[in-house]
């Protein structure tokens, strides 16, 4: 049966269902139980924002609080995966990858290749990404492009509860290391989600809105900004097709190319910093493979080349807005649009 639940609940449900289905699934992270060893409640926090709340009561010691020691426990998750478990390790804020990146990109990502195809590392590293939470420069970044750059990693970033559940279940069942990025400002967003288990395959973008005039490609929070922009544009009879990538690696090139070949215009929206991100990547790919279809230069809407600021007034300027996306669409439609080369800054 299907009912409306939040993305946070959907993630919790995915973990619960997979732990029930597969005894090799374990979940670890800082405060994911919360309060281990302290004198109060057993399951006091259930994750810093309560995403894993209640799982300890159902699965006991298969949920493990860790010391604040990312390189040790992320490495341990990787090692356990190479030895037959399916660990889901929570890296509370993906920004913390700085202290454990070696275990992710030099170890997990490379085992299979370095060992000549004789290893598999089915680990999931899930954590929060994105700005808008008043969490400042070290807890707000969209570092998805860094992970996407690394061969051997799969990178997932859902935009809604339905996708979050199906993609997380797929991530756990997948035999490769998966970086599962949860936009913290989407946790409360609700949509219809089946109570049953289901897996959404990787590499399949979701088309959220059909349109023939322009293709807007995005992922995560900015998908919703793109939809807002599309609604506003529709009032002016500009019909935008909105594509939600869902997974950044692998990426669904076919859907992007098919759409651009139909619309002739491309706007890519990425909350990440402007250099070497998904927007530049997709714009370049389309430029190389569907140049003939383009009626205007691809437009990129991204965060600026700055750290994420703290003050709400500044942070609100940081994340790409629906207005900025709509403006980018209009640039592709204006006669001079193709001459706009500015990187948002």
């Amino acid at each position: 049966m299907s009912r409306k639940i939040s993305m946070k609940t959907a993630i919790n449900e995915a973990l619960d269902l997979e732990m029930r289905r597969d005894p090799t699934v374990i979940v670890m992270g800082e405060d994911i139980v919360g309060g281990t060893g302290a004198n109060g409640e057993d399951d006091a926090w259930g994750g810093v924002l309560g995403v894993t709340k209640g799982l300890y009561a159902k699965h006991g010691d298969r949920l493990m609080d860790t010391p604040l020691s990312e390189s040790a426990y992320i490495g341990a998750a990787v090692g356990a995966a190479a030895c037959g478990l399916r660990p889901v390790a929570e890296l509370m804020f993906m920004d913390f990858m700085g202290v454990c990146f070696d275990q992710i990109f030099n170890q997990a990502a490379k085992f299979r290749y370095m060992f000549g195809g004789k290893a598999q590392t089915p680990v999931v590293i899930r954590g929060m990404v994105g700005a808008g939470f008043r969490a400042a420069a070290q807890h707000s970044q969209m570092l998805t492009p860094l992970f996407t750059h690394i061969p051997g990693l799969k990178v997932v970033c859902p935009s809604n509860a339905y996708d979050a559940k199906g993609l997380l279940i797929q991530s756990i069942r997948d035999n490769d290391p998966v970086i599962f990025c949860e936009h913290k400002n989407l946790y409360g967003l609700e949509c219809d989600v089946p109570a049953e288990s289901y897996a959404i395959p990787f590499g399949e973008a979701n088309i959220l809105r059909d349109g023939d005039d322009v293709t807007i490609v995005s992922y995560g929070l900015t998908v919703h900004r793109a939809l807002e922009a599309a609604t506003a544009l529709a009032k002016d009879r500009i019909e935008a097709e909105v594509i939600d990538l869902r997974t950044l690696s692998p990426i669904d090139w076919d859907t992007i190319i098919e759409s651009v070949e139909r619309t002739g215009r491309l706007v890519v929206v990425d909350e990440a910093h402007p250099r070497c991100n998904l927007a530049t990547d997709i714009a370049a790919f389309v430029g190389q493979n569907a140049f003939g279809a383009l009626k205007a230069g691809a437009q990129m809407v991204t965060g600026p080349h700055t750290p994420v600021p703290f003050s709400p007034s500044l942070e609100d300027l940081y994340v790409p807005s629906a207005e900025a996306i709509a403006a980018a669409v209009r640039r592709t439609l204006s006669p001079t649009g193709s001459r706009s080369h500015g990187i948002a800054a």
Partner: protein
Amino acid sequence: MSNERIKPIVMPKWGLSMSEGKVTGWLKRPGDHVALGDDLLEVETDKITNVVEAGESGVLRRVLGENDTVYPVKALIAVLADPDVSDDEIDAFIAGFVVPAADADADAADATPRYLFAETAAGTIRYATRGEGGPAVLLVHGFGGDLDNWLFSIDALAESATVYALDLPGHGQSTKSVADPSLSGLSAAVLAFMDHVGLAKAHFIGHSMGGAVSMRTALDAPDRVASLSLIASAGLGREIDHGYIQGFVGATSRRDLKPVLETLFADRGLVSRSLIDDLLKYKRLDGVEDALTAISSAMFADGAQSSVLTDLIAAAKTPILVVWGEEDRVIPAAHANALGDAARVAVIPNAGHMVQMEASSKVNALLKDHIGKAA
């Protein structure tokens, strides 16, 4: 304001999830005479595009719904009236028309849940029920379908009957564990559902595989089946497009599924992105692939239908209606005549396997008539 000589045409509500629709093209011009059942306009929802047929006759006096514009359900989009009604009267009617509040509608929807769940001997069965009084009608969908296949029928039938539509085991939101994937097994699940909701006897309307399930039920429990309406039904011949069955079971992506679903309709354009997405969501549920594989192996092994019930059902006493879309590419329309004189037969042009969706007004009228006569 009430005026029996002026008839409003409003944005229809197809199924409970529809809240608005987009006018995509008028098939009649202002001033045209419109007969009952004529195609009036096309409306696109996020689920499907369909033709709105005239429910009454008259002259199309005003067209208010503009092309490519979205209107809420029950918004006034055209006015039909006799030729002698004055323009002033029509203007006054339009001015006085009140679109029912969306909120009130939502409240009503909350009051009667869209879907219900029954814990039966065959597992959890999702169902919907509409209407009160009149004969009981049970809608049984086909392979890979669910009760929303009756989107354009359930409300129309509920005007004069108590209608139940269920999801068979392995389908929709019913249990995905199918204890017995044969016709008898599914028929047993239907009877278990009837027991649960206290339905002693019903008029069965079955589509495709659901038709075969209905026939099986009529043969095994004749006193529980008041009549049979078989729409593009399985069980009336060997042939079936096995490519469709395999394609449907095997498809894992939007790209794979779209051409498969297009074989269901005469008009391929009716397969919307949303229709595909909904089916993908269903297909990706744990257990669905196993259930569909089990059912297809039991019923459509070796590229043909395993059970042909023609002779048995022709000999039964049950009143039978057979409806087919002339352009059905899944089960050939020739099967419509398999029962000869034992059934009333209607083959509808410009419709495919999903004839109850593609030509809903015509099919609904046939169904109502058949049930009315059999009751």
